[in-house]
C-alpha cells in the first residue's frame, strides 16, 4: 500500500494551506475531506483579514472569489428599541489597501482546494476520517471506516468539532463556556439594492457588528456582511450562556432580523440558506498540545481563533498555522524524522508568526468578553444617553453631563465603568 509523506484531515483554510505548502515542495500529499465537495460543511461570518492570503497565494486578488472588499465598518449597540452606531468608512485608495475582504465558504474552499490539487496533492472528498493508525504511541496514518491510509505525518485540520484531536491524545474535549455557536442566514437581494442600502458601489463592502439586544444580553453579537448579491446575517453566542439561560440561537436570529434597525436592511430579501457552526473562542487558555509523534494540529481544531470582541479572526490564523505545519513537515521529510522532537519545530514557527503573537497579546480578551455588562448595561446606557440628548420633552433641557449621569443611574456604577475600562485596556 502506498504511503504518503503527509495526510491532511479536512480541507478548510488550515488544511488547504498546509497541503498546498507541502505539495509545492514536492511531497506526496493526501487531503481527506468529509464533505461531498470542499466547503460543503463549512460556514463563517465571511471577513478575511491580513496579509497571509497574499503570502501564500500572491495571485489571489485576481483569482480568489472575493465577494466585496471591506471599506466600511459599522459597530452598533442595540437595545430592544434603539441602536447607536459607530460608522467608520475608509477610502484609502483601492482594493489593494483594503483591510480585508468578504467571501463565502463554498466558493472560497473550492478555489483553495483547486489550488491544492493543481499543486499536485490528491484531494478525496466524501471521506470522513474516523481514527488513526498507530505505531506504538506514534500516529502512522488514518482510517476511514475500515480503509487504512498510511502516512509519515498526519496534519489534523478538522475544525472546531474535531473528535480526532482527542483520539490522538492531544487534548480533552472542548467545553461549552469555551465555545460560541454561530447561526447565519444567506439573504438574497439584488446587487443594486445592496449598494443603495449600504452606501457602497463596485467591489466595496460593509461589515456590521451588533452588541446588546441581538443576543438578549448574552455574550456574543450579531452581524451583517455584504456579499455581491446577498447578505450574511447572523448571531454568535456563547454556547454555555444559551444552555444556562434557556435561549435558542434560532430564536435570536429571528428577533435580530425583526429589530427595527435591521428589518429595513433585509426587507424583501429571500432567505436561501440557514447554517450553524461552533467557534472555539478561549484562545491560548484552551489550546491543545500542538504536536506529538507523527501528528500536528492546526486551525480551529487547535483553537486558533482570535476574538477581540468586534471581529472574529480564525481563517487567517488557520492558514498561517497551516503554512507553519506544512513547512515543519517539509523539514522533517528532509531529515526523514517525524518524531515529536522533529515536529516541535512547528511550535517555534508559530511563535515567530502573528498567530501566537496575537493570541498572546489578546489572551485576556476571552475572559474580559464574558463580562455581562458589555452586552446589557453598556448598550442600555449608551442608548438611554442618546435618547436623553435627542429627546425634546417640551421642558427646559438639561446639559449633556446631567443626561449622561441620569442615563447611568441604576445601570452602571462609575467605579464599574472605570474598572471595565481599565480591564478593556489590558485585554483588548
Amino acid at each position, binding site marked *: 500500500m502506498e504511503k504518503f509523506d503527509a495526510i491532511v484531515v479536512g480541507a478548510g483554510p488550515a488544511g488547504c494551506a498546509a497541503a498546498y505548502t507541502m505539495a509545492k515542495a514536492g511531497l506526496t500529499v*493526501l487531503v481527506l475531506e468529509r464533505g461531498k465537495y470542499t466547503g460543503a460543511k463549512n460556514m463563517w461570518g465571511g471577513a478575511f483579514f491580513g496579509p497571509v492570503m497574499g503570502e501564500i497565494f500572491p495571485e489571489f486578488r485576481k483569482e480568489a472569489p472575493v465577494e466585496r472588499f471591506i471599506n466600511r465598518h459599522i459597530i452598533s449597540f442595540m437595545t430592544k428599541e434603539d441602536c447607536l452606531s459607530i460608522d467608520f468608512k475608509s477610502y484609502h485608495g483601492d482594493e489593494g489597501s483594503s483591510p480585508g475582504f468578504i467571501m463565502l465558504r463554498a466558493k472560497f474552499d*473550492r478555489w483553495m482546494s483547486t489550488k491544492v490539487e493543481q499543486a499536485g496533492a*490528491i484531494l478525496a*472528498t466524501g471521506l470522513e476520517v474516523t481514527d488513526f493508525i498507530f505505531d506504538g504511541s506514534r500516529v502512522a496514518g488514518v482510517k476511514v471506516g475500515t*480503509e487504512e*491510509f498510511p502516512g509519515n505525518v498526519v496534519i489534523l485540520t478538522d475544525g472546531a468539532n474535531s473528535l480526532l484531536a482527542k483520539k490522538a491524545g492531544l487534548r480533552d474535549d472542548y467545553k461549552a463556556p469555551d465555545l460560541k455557536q454561530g447561526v447565519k442566514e444567506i439573504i438574497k437581494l439584488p446587487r443594486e439594492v445592496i449598494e443603495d442600502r449600504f452606501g457602497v458601489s463596485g467591489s466595496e463592502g460593509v461589515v456590521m457588528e451588533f452588541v446588546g439586544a441581538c443576543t438578549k444580553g448574552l455574550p456574543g453579537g450579531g452581524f451583517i456582511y455584504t456579499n455581491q448579491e446577498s447578505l450574511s446575517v447572523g448571531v454568535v453566542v456563547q454556547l454555555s450562556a444559551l444552555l444556562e439561560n434557556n435561549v435558542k440561537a434560532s430564536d435570536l436570529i429571528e428577533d435580530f432580523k425583526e429589530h427595527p434597525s435591521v428589518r429595513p436592511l433585509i426587507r424583501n430579501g429571500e432567505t436561501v440558506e440557514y447554517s450553524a457552526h461552533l467557534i472555539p473562542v478561549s484562545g491560548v487558555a484552551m489550546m491543545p498540545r500542538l504536536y506529538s509523534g507523527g501528528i500536528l494540529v492546526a486551525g480551529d481544531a487547535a483553537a486558533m481563533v482570535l476574538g477581540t470582541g468586534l471581529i472574529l479572526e480564525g481563517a487567517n490564523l488557520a492558514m498561517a498555522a497551516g503554512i507553519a505545519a506544512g513547512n515543519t513537515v517539509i523539514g522533517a521529510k528532509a531529515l526523514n524524522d517525524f518524531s515529536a522532537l522533529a515536529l516541535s519545530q512547528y511550535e517555534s514557527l508559530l511563535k515567530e508568526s502573528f498567530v501566537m503573537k496575537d493570541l498572546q497579546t489578546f489572551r485576556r480578551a476571552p475572559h474580559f468578553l464574558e463580562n455581562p455588562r458589555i452586552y446589557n448595561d453598556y448598550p442600555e446606557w449608551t442608548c438611554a444617553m442618546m435618547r436623553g440628548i435627542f429627546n425634546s420633552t417640551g421642558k427646559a433641557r438639561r446639559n449633556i453631563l446631567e443626561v449622561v449621569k441620569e442615563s447611568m443611574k441604576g445601570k452602571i456604577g462609575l467605579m464599574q465603568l472605570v474598572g471595565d475600562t481599565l480591564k478593556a485596556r489590558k485585554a483588548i
Partner: protein
Amino acid sequence: MEIIVCIKPVLDPDLPPAKFTVDGKKNEVIPPEGVPFVMSPYDALAVEAALRIKEAQGGKITVLTQGTKYAEEIMRKALAMGADEGVILSDPAFEDSDGFGTAHVLAQTVKKIGKFDLILCGRQAADWDAGVVGSLIAEYLNIPVVIRAKSIEVLDGVLKIERISTNGSEVFELGLPALVTLSSEMGQVRIPSGWGIISAAKKQVPKWGATDIGTDPSQTGAAAAVNRLVKLYVPVYERKCEMVTGKDPAEAAARLTEKILAIKP
C-alpha cells in the same frame, strides 16, 4: 466484454430551488457558484450496471462524457467507482449541442474506439429529462436499443434485459452489440472507496476534440440544434384548499363526490 458508458454532468437535481436562479430573459439556469455538478443519477446507474456485469464475467469499462465544466469531476467519480478508462469529449464546436449533436459526438467516439459489445446510458439526463441521446446513439451506430432497463444479464453473448413498462415490466433478449439505458429501479449505486478515489486521481484522462473523432461540423453546436428552447420559467403552482364537511362521514363523502363530479376536465 467491452462496455462503454456515457455520462453527463448536471446540476444536482435534488438541490432546493432556492439555491439556483432561472433567468427567464436568457432562458438560462444560473447554478450556485463553487458547487460542482454531479453525475446525472441515471448515468450513475449505468456505471453501476457496467460494474456489476464486469464483476460477473470480466471485461473493460470505458466512460465517455461530453462537456467542459465539471466533466473532469464526474469522470473521476466514475473511475473511482471502478471504471477502467475514460475520455472527455471537449471542443468549442460541441458547445450548446442539443441531444442530436451530443449523440453524434458520442457515436463518433464509439466508432473511433472501434471495439465494443455493450453501450450503457442513463434513461435520461436529470436536467432536461429529454431521454433521447441513448436511442439516437444506437440509431447512428445502427445497433439495437432497449430503454429503461431495470436489470441486465449477459449469458453466452446474449443480453437478457428486464425493462420497465407502463404496466409492469417486460423481458427482452437480444444479441450484442447493443445499447441499453438504465432506470432507477435498478437499485443502489455504490459509493467509491478512498483508494478508488486515489487511483482515479492518478489516471490520465485524454481529451478528444472534433478532429480526433471526426465529427461533422454541421451536426454539432448550437447552429445544428434541432430543438430550440422557447421558454424557461419556474412554474407557479396554485393550490386551493376547501374543507368539505357534513353531519356524518356519509354526508361529507356524498358532498365530496358531488364536488369532484362537478369538476370539468
